[in-house]
């Protein structure tokens, strides 16, 4: 298991390749990458992500551990950035390795649902009109209830 919380960009290809290497007993690897999305009506200048340094890594590691047990993962990787990001930049990635694809897909979805609502990050969108904190949605919270 590897959890990285960082301001720097990460190399998706290199991370994927390193994660995929050395898992001879794992038949499936699923990766998800989150990107800063531009806003259709009010172009995004940047997204600022605040986090709670003392808690972030610990909280993500606990989720990754839970996912590992629940979906029989052979390995899991989570990278999540903070700080100022521009549209099109990668915010985060999750990779899961399991013996079979269903577990790998489910575990990645589970981790994304939990990262969205339980990892201590707060996003703020900066546009020409000003800055606004991104609000959580009922859908985000409801997504957790199916687990």
């Amino acid at each position, binding site marked *: 298991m590897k959890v990285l919380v960082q301001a720097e960009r990460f190399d998706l290809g290199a991370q994927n390749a390193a994660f995929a290497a050395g898992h001879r007993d794992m038949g499936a690897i699923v990766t998800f990458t*989150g990107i800063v999305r531009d806003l259709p009506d009010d172009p995004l200048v940047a997204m600022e992500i*605040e986090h*709670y340094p*003392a*808690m972030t890594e*610990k*909280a993500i590691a606990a989720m990754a551990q839970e996912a590992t047990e629940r979906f029989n993962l052979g390995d899991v990787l989570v990278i*999540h950035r903070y700080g100022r990001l521009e549209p099109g930049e990668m*915010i*985060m990635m999750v990779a899961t390795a399991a013996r079979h694809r269903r577990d790998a897909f489910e575990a990645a979805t589970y981790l*994304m649902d939990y*990262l*969205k*609502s*339980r*990892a*201590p*990050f*707060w*996003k*703020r969108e900066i546009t020409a009109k000003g800055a606004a*904190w*991104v*609000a*959580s949605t009922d859908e*985000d*919270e409801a997504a957790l209830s199916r687990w």
Partner: protein
Amino acid sequence: MDVLYFAWVRERIGIAREKVETQAATVSDLVAELRGREERYAAAFEDVSALRVALDQELADFDAALDGVREVAFFPPMTGG
């Protein structure tokens, strides 16, 4: 204890962290104390249903006891991922 504020809670109160001397038994008691301090605290804690709390870096409920807790953090619902 150390009390930390994040995102718009931090903006409303105007500081990121502070030391608080309190006899509050629960998070809700602490919130009531803070709310009574100044208008900016009252604004930040106006609707606790819009807030989350962590005790020593673990998510907790507002009726949780503060006994032995060293760090309390208040913040809006998280928006990671």
